[in-house]
């Protein structure tokens, strides 16, 4: 069966959820082989096997930590040359897309970014689905030449276990000279709070300019906690300094596709829609009945978010007893 390379996204050996989604998708196309860069592979192998990795290629060299992107490109190029995979899957993160872009040039292979689903055609080749033009179009595409290099958005599928005992293969990679590499001077990890991550959450509650102040985001957070939701923000709220950029939903922020998206005090500009309009159910609270966000809403309340949201949070608590 064809080998499918999956680049593992991890933090010091803790595999992030999108990688499990990639392994799940890879099984539709062939046998997944995980490509693990950096230290900590021993702890990661178990979970990679649980989600179906038949093989784990381990590349552990100082270059991986000191440089951005190019060591991964070097590693994947070398592993692809020796294993002849039927596809390479990577997460649609900043780094993932950059690795994919360089890899596609090196392999002279077709590249598809930001897939939200992958299926196999009758010959087993990948067919991708993407949302384009601010998510107003749904497009299917395939790679016509070379090893398909595909980056996949988080939440494209639910990770499904398929236990395997992976063969672990250590790989020595010849890295390109440092002059073509980008050096990491420092890395300040963001402290994730107790709430779910934006891209992974089933429910997202977002606040916009209508929230009118950093301290008022407590109203958004209170509702998010009642629902077990992640907190999002419009660019207007982020630019005003009320909430961190890592929570921005939209074209130049994060694109989310949760089961439920609640927009409060957000007008619904095209750039914001681009990041949320594939959500399954959309709820809007806005005091302007003409706000374009209501065009998307399955349920909308025309009213003051400072009255509606606290009442909603309390009612949810009450219903849950």
């Amino acid at each position: 069966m064809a080998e499918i390379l999956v680049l593992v996204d991890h933090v010091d050996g803790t595999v992030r959820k999108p990688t499990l989604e990639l392994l799940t998708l890879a099984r539709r196309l062939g046998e997944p082989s995980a490509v693990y860069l950096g230290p900590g592979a021993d702890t990661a192998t178990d979970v990679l096997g649980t989600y179906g990795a038949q093989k784990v290629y381990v590349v552990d060299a100082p270059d991986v930590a000191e440089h951005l992107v190019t060591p991964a490109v070097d590693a994947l190029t070398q592993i692809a040359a020796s294993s002849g995979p039927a596809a390479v899957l990577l997460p649609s993160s900043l780094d993932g897309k950059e690795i994919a872009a360089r890899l596609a040039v090196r392999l002279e292979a077709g590249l598809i970014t930001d897939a939200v689903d992958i299926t196999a055609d009758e010959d087993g080749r990948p067919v991708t689905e993407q949302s384009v033009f601010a998510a107003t179009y749904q497009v299917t595409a395939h790679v016509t030449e070379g090893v398909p290099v595909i980056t996949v958005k988080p939440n494209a599928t639910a990770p499904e276990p398929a236990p395997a005992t992976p063969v672990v293969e250590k790989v020595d990679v010849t890295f390109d000279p440092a002059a073509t590499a980008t050096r990491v001077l420092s890395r300040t990890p963001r402290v994730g709070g107790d709430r779910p991550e934006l891209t992974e959450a089933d429910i997202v509650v977002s606040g916009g300019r209508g929230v009118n102040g950093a301290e008022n985001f407590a109203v958004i957070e209170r509702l998010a906690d009642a629902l077990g939701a992640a907190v999002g923000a419009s660019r207007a709220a982020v630019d005003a300094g009320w909430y961190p950029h890592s929570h921005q939903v939209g074209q130049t922020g994060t694109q989310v596709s949760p089961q439920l998206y609640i927009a409060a005090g957000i007008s619904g500009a095209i750039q914001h829609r681009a990041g949320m309009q594939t959500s399954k159910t959309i709820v809007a609270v806005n005091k302007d009945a003409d706000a374009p966000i209501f065009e998307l809403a399955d349920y909308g309340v025309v009213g003051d978010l400072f009255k509606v949201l606290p009442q909603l949070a309390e009612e949810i608590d009450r219903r849950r007893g």
Partner: protein
Amino acid sequence: MKIVVCVKHVPDATADRTFTEDGTTDRDAVDSVLSELDEYAVEQALRITESGVDAEVTYLTVGPDDAKDALRKALAMGGDRAIHVSDDDIQGSDALGTSLVLAKAIERHGFDLVVCGMASTDGSMGVVPAMLAERLGVPAVTHLDELAISIEDGSVTGRREGESATVRVQGTLPAVVSVTDRSGDARYPSFKGIMAAKKKPVETLDLADLDIEPEWTGRSAARSAVDTAAKRPPRAKGEIVADEGAGGVGLAAFLTAKKFA
């Protein structure tokens, strides 16, 4: 130093964009503009020249005839000259083809720094800067919220917000950088700037000028293809209620019915 800024002419993101029958972006359906995200690249290049670094700023675009408008807009903001690569055989290129043409044009012109936007607002793949770096054999320092050039060290340093960390990164010059919409507001062209732009040189090149064989770019060279493009069905009209004191309770009932609460 020589700074090349890559700017793209794109269908207006606020208009209804569509596809042609062959699955490529329909460029005739709506007005096109300088990609908003590339305005930030123009701005950063101009700020470098204003910070005392002796630099010449050249804009580069690959696109049909009217893509020149994007160059004029950029020149009106500032900068020195522009290059327009236009050739019927480029039509339908994927990112691999586009990056090849851009790279050849950049090599021909010479460069110390290439500045790109974080993504084009139509394709929005955000991959061309990395492809350029790969083709030019230089570092890519991308998605920067903040950017500084050091002529003494021959380096470019920046800050990027990654998914899980804030990272300070550095590459040696020559390099390709891309900047985000958080790097600093782009200036508006002044009347004087608009007039001055009309006199700035714009060079037009075709594939032959760049020693590119026609079959290396364009639709026939594209390594991926769109099979189907379907407009998302409009969302069913939802229930919109005015809050008359119990809006939150009503919304809770909706969420309970949908099994969210």
